[in-house]
């Protein structure tokens, strides 16, 4: 991303989120901040809130909306209101298992959602702490793994189908979806698959017909608009066996490394990365 922006003629400096950040931002002059931090504070609206307080133009979704997108249960409720399907789920804090009895709660979860289940830390990213559970007997272990990352677990019905990531560019009514990128993993698309090339085959654009492409891009655009996401986002969707797009993740700060999904979509759209990134920065600067 940095290289692409430099190619577009921008001057780019990198800063960590530490005690040097505010002085660095103060010295920025008429520049723009592009938050690149993943996980909490980068995606939960904290960093964005700080930038708003400092009155600095920045790229991406505003603090309030980032917070909504970050809390998966709230984001899912918004999706449901707008008719966008998301996999059935429950969010349960560890304390509930303690108070009510773990085995009974787990039985109730399986009775409601069935198997297989995806177990995720309620807050987090990069597939850390995520497990796919096919048997009830594996649920205990998956929850222990998950609770090592967060005190609350998001337990989701694991939907099978074609997994695509739809990147969206722009804001509001002028937002446009880029071609979906299909993720075809041999085995689960877990941490190992994401960070070790080989187990995953990416298709950009996805192997979908026009109607399917339209269904998934409409779903991503609806999410982007209804959650008031700004500049860029990536919506992860499984097109299930009935052809229904199930939104299972929303990223307000999509990965932008050379192997990430967003840049793959830009290239699949026959767009130039430098030009796209520069236009994102210009939009932020003009605000």
């Amino acid at each position, binding site marked *: 991303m940095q290289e692409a922006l430099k190619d577009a003629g921008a001057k780019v400096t990198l800063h960590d989120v530490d005690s040097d950040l505010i002085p660095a931002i103060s010295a920025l002059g008429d520049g723009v901040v592009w938050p690149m931090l993943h996980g909490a504070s980068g995606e939960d609206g904290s960093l964005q809130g700080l930038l708003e307080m400092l009155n600095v133009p920045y790229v991406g979704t505003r603090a309030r909306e980032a917070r909504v997108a970050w809390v998966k249960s709230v984001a899912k409720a918004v999706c449901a209101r707008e008719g966008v399907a998301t996999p059935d789920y429950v969010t349960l804090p*560890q304390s509930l298992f303690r108070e009510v009895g*773990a085995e009974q709660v787990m039985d109730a979860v399986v009775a409601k959602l069935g198997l297989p289940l995806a177990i995720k830390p309620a807050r987090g990213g*990069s597939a*850390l702490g995520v497990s796919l559970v096919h048997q009830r007997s594996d649920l205990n272990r998956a929850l222990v793994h998950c609770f*090592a990352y967060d005190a609350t677990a998001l337990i989701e019905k694991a939907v099978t189908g074609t*997994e695509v990531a739809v990147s969206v560019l722009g804001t509001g009514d002028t937002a446009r979806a880029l071609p979906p990128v299909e993720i075809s993993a041999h085995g689960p698309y877990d*941490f190992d698959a994401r*960070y070790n*090339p080989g187990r995953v085959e990416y298709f950009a654009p996805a192997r979908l017909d026009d109607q399917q492409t339209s269904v998934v891009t409409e779903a991503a655009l609806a999410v982007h608009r209804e959650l008031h996401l700004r500049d860029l986002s990536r919506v992860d969707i499984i097109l299930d*066996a009935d052809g229904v797009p199930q939104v299972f993740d929303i990223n307000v700060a999509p990965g932008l490394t050379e192997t990430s999904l967003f840049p793959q979509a830009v290239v699949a759209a026959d767009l130039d990365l430098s030009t796209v990134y520069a236009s994102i920065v210009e939009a932020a600067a003009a605000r």
Partner: protein
Amino acid sequence: MKDLAPMSTSDRHGTRLDPWFDSYAARAHRMRASEIRALFAVASRPEVVSLAGGMPYIGGLPLEELSEMSRRLILEQGEVALQYGGGQGDEGLREQITEVMSLEGIAAHPDDVVVTTGSQQALDLVSTIFLDPGDVVVAEAPSYVGALGVFRAHEADVVHTPMDADGLIPEALDKTLGELAAAGRRVKFLYTVPNFHNPGGVTLSAERRPQVVEICERHRVLILEDNPYGLLGFDREPMPALRSLSENGVIYLGSFSKTFAPGYRVGWAVAPHAVREKLVLASEAAILSPSNASQLAIRAYLQHFDWQGQIKKFQVQYRERRDAMITSLEEHLPEASWNVPDGGFYVWVKLPEGLNAKTMLPRAVTARVAYVSGTAFYADGQGSDHMRLSFCYPTPERIREGVRRLASVVDAEMETVRIFGTSGGDDGDSVDFPSPDLA
């Protein structure tokens, strides 16, 4: 994902983001990024108290004097320092190395010494010249993660043999070697860290040293003696090296990384004559020659600085840190158990019943404290009930804070384990690939 029939363009191929994926050697496919490595990326942040890495306390060195030494080195010897050197290493340094080793009873000639890029490279060279796929290396249980990674990269099988508070147990070693011979396995060497073991913290007793040498001689098994910490004892004189008991049966590895500075990456091997010849050939094939600049810097340091006095200072500093760690463990984690090392860098902690150190690590990193899971130190999936804590790098105050955080992590994990009735560990955990974070 594959159930949905591909559409109009079904015969397309996707990208794996690595155009050379199909070209790798089979062994490269085992080199994988892991969740543990991702966590260690976070662990290096300043707000995290890292009790994980074996980084020496460089702040204890006379940095101003060393910078002057470096300046003069380039000024006065730049044409040598910045040039290639000999494959075996600088002769003057090799002579000084023999003096260093004499402190542990080794009488070696400079010709016996091969200078390497840290003793990690020496481990690689020894493995290159001795290990065929399927050969066996016998190693202590537990054993240094960096060595296990090298042996695995050479496709050897590691068989562990137990230790107690006095190090390797001779009877158990004899039995292990006997069983392997009876099973028709080719054991190429015993890998051992006899002093202030990494991660175990224990030292092989003086009585057992000749026994270990005798057992290996009887089984015709070479000893690979890895000794980076031997001079870092707190309360006693260095022990005689195994190499001092057998010139032909031991390859000895030494290092300046823990007694001086790992940034120079200078270590060495001392080997029987014929082995040494092969080590030099293998080293030249790998790196042509070790860094002249680093070797001359170490030479100057040994010549012009009171390096033994510096080691004594380190001993005092490390002892203070060990004490901080032990008293903090006694105060905050009485339900765990540990050894009290009398040198080196590490305390090997046994977790309370039912906890899994590998599963607990994310919780620890979230609580801003890091350690190395015991599973890293076994080739066979053991070790989840242990963790290695390093006391070398953080200040005593930070160590106390780190152990305090760790205690709350252990409490929280105990509750989770109680609730779900499992420690959450996977069966068949494998070793993680070593990295500087785990040195």
